[in-house]
């Protein structure tokens, strides 16, 4: 699609040109339409979060609030205990994403480069982990961490199993052992990526006397930064929004997904403490709180996405996930 110098080639309207122009118009319309479909709910959330409740029942108001208010944000910030939840979730997601990035990279590199007995079978286990819905092991996991014990060691020291619920240990354990949320997918993606990397670099390093671990840290890790950012971002975001494991393990500790899930109820409780001007919790109000909370929960992610976006797209494109 190089632009030709205008002086040399006379403009002639050919069927091919018309076709191409038509196609680019159609393509533009489709892409703009789809982008709109994706962005519209975000805009709705944003605009609803600035509305006061009577705007919701005003049929004249659709997107632009008539009674602009920041009251929703005040309530939601308080109801979610936002700043502290934010810090906690940030630490949790960041830590989990980092740990599972390390463990999944090691495992994926092992599967990509070395031959060892039962490798095919073990890789089938990775796929199995990917396809077993976490709901199946939800209850055993809960019980496992409720009555936690490793080979009877803790029982010997403490006199009984301990509960790891309401702490970050379940997340850490799952992240370090590649059994966290969608870690099978991460191993799979990273393995495909490592398989696509040229072997020559590693062989050269090996000949020069690097150990295998050193080759990994000095050669592989620096040259797979975009992919690492991608996996980190996936891990971070899915942990950030995940209500499955957080609601399973953390009952008393407020993190963003848990807080978001119970936001409407907690704001309602707040109100009824003040003497109950709201006797029932109206669906409009729930929706307003949910939207405000969602905007608050998403905001850090959007910032992160904008920062990492370039790496993200690049990493995905170079992953070369084939078959």
């Amino acid at each position, binding site marked *: 699609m190089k632009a030709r110098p205008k002086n040399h080639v006379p403009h002639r309207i050919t069927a091919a040109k018309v076709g191409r122009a038509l196609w680019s118009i159609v393509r533009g319309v489709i892409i703009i339409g789809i982008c709109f*479909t994706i962005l519209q709910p975000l805009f709705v959330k944003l605009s609803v979060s600035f509305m006061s409740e009577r705007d919701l029942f005003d049929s004249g108001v659709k997107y632009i609030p008539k009674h602009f208010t920041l009251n929703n944000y005040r309530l939601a910030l308080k109801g979610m205990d936002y700043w502290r939840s934010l810090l906690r979730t940030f630490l949790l997601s960041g830590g989990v994403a980092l740990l599972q990035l390390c463990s999944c990279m090691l495992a994926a590199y092992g599967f990509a480069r070395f031959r060892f007995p039962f490798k095919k079978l073990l890789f089938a286990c990775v796929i199995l982990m990917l396809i077993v819905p976490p709901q199946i092991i939800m209850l055993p996991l809960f019980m496992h961490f409720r009555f936690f014990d490793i080979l009877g060691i803790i029982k010997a020291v403490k006199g009984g199993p301990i509960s790891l619920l309401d702490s970050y240990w379940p997340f850490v354990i799952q992240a370090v052992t590649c059994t966290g949320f969608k870690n099978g997918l991460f191993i799979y993606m990273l393995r495909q990526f490592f398989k696509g990397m040229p072997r020559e670099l590693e062989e050269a390093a090996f000949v020069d006397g690097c150990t295998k671990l050193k080759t990994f840290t000095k050669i592989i890790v620096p040259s797979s930064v975009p992919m690492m950012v991608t996996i980190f971002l996936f891990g971070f975001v899915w942990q950030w929004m995940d209500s499955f494991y957080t609601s399973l393990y953390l009952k008393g500790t407020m993190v963003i997904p848990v807080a978001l899930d119970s936001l409407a109820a907690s704001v309602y409780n707040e109100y009824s403490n003040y003497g109950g001007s709201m006797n029932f919790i109206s669906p409009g109000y729930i929706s307003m709180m949910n939207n405000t909370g969602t905007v608050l929960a998403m905001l850090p992610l959007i910032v992160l996405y904008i920062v990492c976006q370039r790496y993200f797209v690049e990493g995905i494109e170079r992953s070369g996930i084939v078959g």
Partner: protein
Amino acid sequence: MKNKGYFKKANGKWRLSLLGREALAGIGFALPFLIGFFGLFLPMIVKSVSYSFSNMSVESTGYVLTRAEKNGLEHYIRALTIDPDFNRMLLQAIVDMFTKVPLVIIFSFFMANMLNQKFHGRAIARSILFLPVILTSGVVLGLESSDLLLTTLSPAEMSNTDFSTILNISALLLKYTDLPASAINFLASAVNGIYNIIIASGVQILIFLAGLQSISPSLYEASSMEGATAWENFWKITFPMISPLILVNSIYTIIDSFTSETNAIMKDIKDTIFGEVKYGLGSAMAWIYFICIGVILLIVGGIISRHVFYNDER
């Protein structure tokens, strides 16, 4: 490699051979996964099976399992024959999956092809299209689907309020074409559910796009040189080269559709376990569900992988 053994004898002692050292390194790297799989994942699976065959009572120091009635099959029988909703929801989930998966695959394939072309604003379009991967996961999706206001304002619902137009078009199609009514209904539901399809196809678009970019441009050059049209190029080069990813994406989409948190049956299982405190029944339901998923995955995977073209057999 001539030496097939993992050990060799040198100076009267058994040492690791080259192959043995490689195997050791591989196992060493994969160790986090191996520990996780055999230390955590597999025991959990086994426990989950044993829960489904037992009645459980929780005490302060642990829990006690007693064998359920009817040779332990009580919960399975209850879920399949007594529970009024389970069968219906199971069937509904399967039907939903079969209507949604082809649409998601076709849509994401189409979008990936489009995003792979060069045009102005491509970078922005890509960033926006990958946004659902980031933003519509986990708790947000659950809130969205339960939100009364948002559903009335969402594009899907808006097109429902303009249902007359779609109805008219489908009426016209029914009148003037020979398409069967079921096909037209399928199309109408596809148009109506476009928002759900778009937000479900983020990862799939990424995978297809990555695959498209790994096709060597020299293939296209050679075939264009021989006089092939773009249409022929698509069917003779792009499609076969991308076909392994159709398999990957189909399987991913099936799993995604079955395990999404908005799935009615998933909610029901969670409610049964934590709401009604029926551990055994919930586990049995989860296992019946998983076996259904497994069978469908095997069938679909078997059918598609027969038509997949692999460029280089490794």
